Every structure is written in C-alpha cells, then in structure tokens.
C-alpha cells in the first residue's frame, strides 16, 4: 500500500535544513518557495530514507492570483509518496527552476506546462511549445484564455 | 534451321511491342481525356509523410552502399553466363566445364580479396 507521507512530517525534517523555505504544510501536501524548489527536490531525491527517485506527475493549476505547480513524487524502494507544491506569482512571465536535471521524466511535462499554462522553467534544455505550434497566441489552459477558434 | 531464328525474331517483336504499349498507354489515355490530368506544384513535390522535405537529400553517402551495388553487378554478370552453359551442359562436356570453372575462379578471387579486406562488414 503506497503510504502518502504527511506534509507536516516532511516539513519538520526540511525546516532545519532549509530554513524559511516552507511556505505552509498540511496533512496531504507541502508548499515550498519557488527559489528553493531545486535544492529541496534534490534533497528529497538523494536522502537515503526518503529516496524519491520516481517523479509521478507535474501539474499546473491557475488560481488567478497565482499559479500552483504540483509535483507528485514517489519512492519505488520505500513505496511512499509525497505531494510538493510551489506557488508562482505574476501572469505575464511566471518562471520556476526546472527539475529536469533530477528527473528526466519532467522534460515533456514542463514543456507541456509551458505550452498550455505559460510558466517558463529555467534550466530546461528545450524550452519550447510541445503541443501547439510556434506563433500560437496565448496559453490555452489559463482561465482567462479567450477561445480563438 | 532458319525457322529457329524466326522464333527469336517473333519473340523480339512481342517484347518490343509490349514495351512500347506499356510506355505509351498513359499518354494515349491522357490524350483521349479518359484519364484526368491536373498537375499542381504541391502534387509534383516529393511526398514525405505530409511534411515539406528538410534540407537536401543529394548528400555524400557512405561508400559501402556503392560497393555493395558494385559487387552485386559483378556476380550478376557471372550468373548471366552460367545460364546458357547450364542449359547445354551435356553437349559441352568436360571442355565447357573447365571453361566455366576458370570463369568462376576469376570472380571468386576478387570476392575473397574483398572479403579479406573486411569491406563487407556493415560498419
């Protein structure tokens, strides 16, 4: 049975290693600051007892005030999972550090989020649209996208 | 005796007319307007899975493709000589056999040389 680790537990562990980077943590997930996302993620991946080596999915949700990017992590060895979130402010040029260097599975997911939601991922090797064509105006999955059909 | 050559002439005639008709058939049908003819620039361009071709295809290929073709031609020409010999094996007797062996020997020497130079490996 995949044990979903509680955000609070992991937040306590991360607090002393990365002071001030945990925005909030609840039972089901953990919200971290965008800047420290990369080193928290590398800590989660490399530390032996957590060992999150399998990135299940990345999703971006548009809450008008901010974009929320949800990372679902899983560990194959310990069979536990964790949900890490980041908030990303600014609607014209939101940006986040890319995690492709940790998990190559994030490659297409981040391109898809850039294509449909408009969040740039710095450090991504091939940051361009994946589904739509160059010259498509706007980002379709945003709530304020007018359907240009 | 002469009649045999007549058969060959007939055979040549049939072959010639068959070739001509197959070549001219499309043009005559198009002339009689039975087959529609609507050329347009996109139709005449190369088909590549629905996309436009990228870059040029007239590029410098690896030599091994050309070498294989060369080797095939040599062996094929050899085979062409074997056919008439194989048909008349009885009459030609031992003299014909030796001639063919010598012929094959020449080609096989070249083949073994190519083999030893490891040119046949598909790098």
């Amino acid at each position, binding site marked *: 049975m995949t044990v979903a680790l509680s955000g609070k537990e992991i937040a306590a562990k991360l607090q002393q290693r990365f002071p001030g980077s945990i925005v909030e943590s609840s039972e089901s997930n953990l919200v971290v600051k965008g800047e420290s996302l990369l080193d928290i993620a590398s800590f989660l991946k490399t530390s032996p007892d957590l060992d999150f080596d399998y990135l299940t999915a990345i999703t971006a949700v548009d809450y008008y005030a901010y974009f929320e990017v949800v990372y679902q992590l899983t560990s194959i060895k310990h069979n536990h999972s964790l949900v890490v979130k980041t908030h990303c402010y600014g609607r014209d040029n939101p940006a986040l550090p890319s995690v*492709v*260097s940790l998990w190559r599975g994030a490659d297409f997911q981040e391109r898809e989020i850039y294509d449909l939601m408009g969040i740039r991922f710095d*450090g991504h*090797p*091939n940051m*361009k*649209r994946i*589904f*739509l*064509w*160059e*010259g*498509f105006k706007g980002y*379709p999955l945003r709530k304020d*996208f007018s*359907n*240009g*059909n | 005796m002469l009649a045999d050559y007549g058969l060959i002439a007939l055979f040549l005639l049939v072959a010639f007319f068959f070739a001509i008709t197959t070549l001219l058939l499309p043009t005559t049908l198009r002339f009689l*307007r*039975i*087959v*529609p*003819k*609507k050329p*347009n620039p*996109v*139709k005449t*361009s190369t*088909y590549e*899975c*629905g*996309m*436009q071709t*990228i*870059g040029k295809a007239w590029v410098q290929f690896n030599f091994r493709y050309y070498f294989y073709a060369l080797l095939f031609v040599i062996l094929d020409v050899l085979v062409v000589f074997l056919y008439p010999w194989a048909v008349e094996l009885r009459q030609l007797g031992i003299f014909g056999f030796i001639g063919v062996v010598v012929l094959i020997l020449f080609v096989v020497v070249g083949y073994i040389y190519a083999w030893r130079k490891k040119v046949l490996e598909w790098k």
Partner: protein
Amino acid sequence: MEVEDITKRYIYSAVELDRAEGEMIEALKAGSQQPIPDPDKWLEEKLERNIILTTVDGLLNWARRSSLWTVLCFPACCAFEFIATAASRFDISRFGMEILRASPRQADLMITAGTLTRKMAPQVRRIYDQMAEPKWVIAMGACGISGGIFTGSYNVVPGYNRIIPVDVYVPGCPPRPEALLYGIRMLQKKISQRSLLQEGR
C-alpha cells in the same frame, strides 16, 4: 548530471522549422473558415451520352469503384474502427479495398479516420493534393464531419470539409464497421454515375 542544451545540437535549426510550420498552420487556419462545397453538383447535370460513351463510362466506373485503394489518414479512434473493418471479420477486401496504401501516390480514396487538429490540417491538405486524380474523400466519424465531441476546442478544425472537399460523410463516434461499409457502398454508387463528358472529369 549535466543537461546539455538540445537546441544547439541539430544540423537544422529547429526553431526556424517550427516557426515556418507555424506560419503555414496560421495561414491555413485563416484560409479555412468556410467549408469547401461538396463536389456533387455534377450529379444533377443531365448528360446526353451516346452508346459508345456509356460502355466506356460503364467500364471505367466499374474498374474505379471496385478497386478503391485508401491512403492512411489515421489520426485517432476511428482508425481502429477502420482497421477492424479492414480486418478479417468485416472484410473490406470484398470491395477490392484490400490494400491500405501508405503513400498518396498509389491511392484514390482518403478515409479520414479521426479528429482533425489545426496542426495536422496543412499535412492533410498536402496529402490530399498529392493524391492522383480521380480521388474521393470519405469523412469518417463525427469528428470528421463537424469536430464531434471536441467542437469547441481551440485546436480542432470543425470538420474535414473546411480543408478538403468531402464526398461521403459517415456519422458515428466511432461509426460501426457496418456504417463505414454502407458509406463505401454509397461512394461506389456515386462513382458509377460519373461520366467522361462532365467537365470536372
């Protein structure tokens, strides 16, 4: 591990190619707002045909309708209903359509099995142009007729007739093999009324 920048690797410039394709897509999107009229108006013309022509017509039409080779235009779900029609149970080779030609050069029928998206539209238009005359199109499935369940989407062309003239529409999502065979039968009826005299040829 170090991640090298992919964009600098290809011998072609991927960005230019994408931009060029993007412009093509935008141009076709602008140009394809109105549906292309179906090529059916010659059906109404009453043509006076003499004896010789009727036999030539009859022979030609019989030959053309009983060996329709389809070009692979298989974007989505209807493709698997078409493959089921082509498979051994609903055998499509009873109608002489045994072979699915991969290239449009050797095909004279395009069965559009799937949703047409804006990005795929220039490719379908190009494949249709590269098919030899005389050619026909069957728009298979609700997506082919009007965009189907995806009509409101920003990336779906509402119907193939915006891009290519369509002869027969087969509704259904996906249409059952029997419906597709009925559509093919109707196309064969349409072909059998063609004549050499009509100006469209």
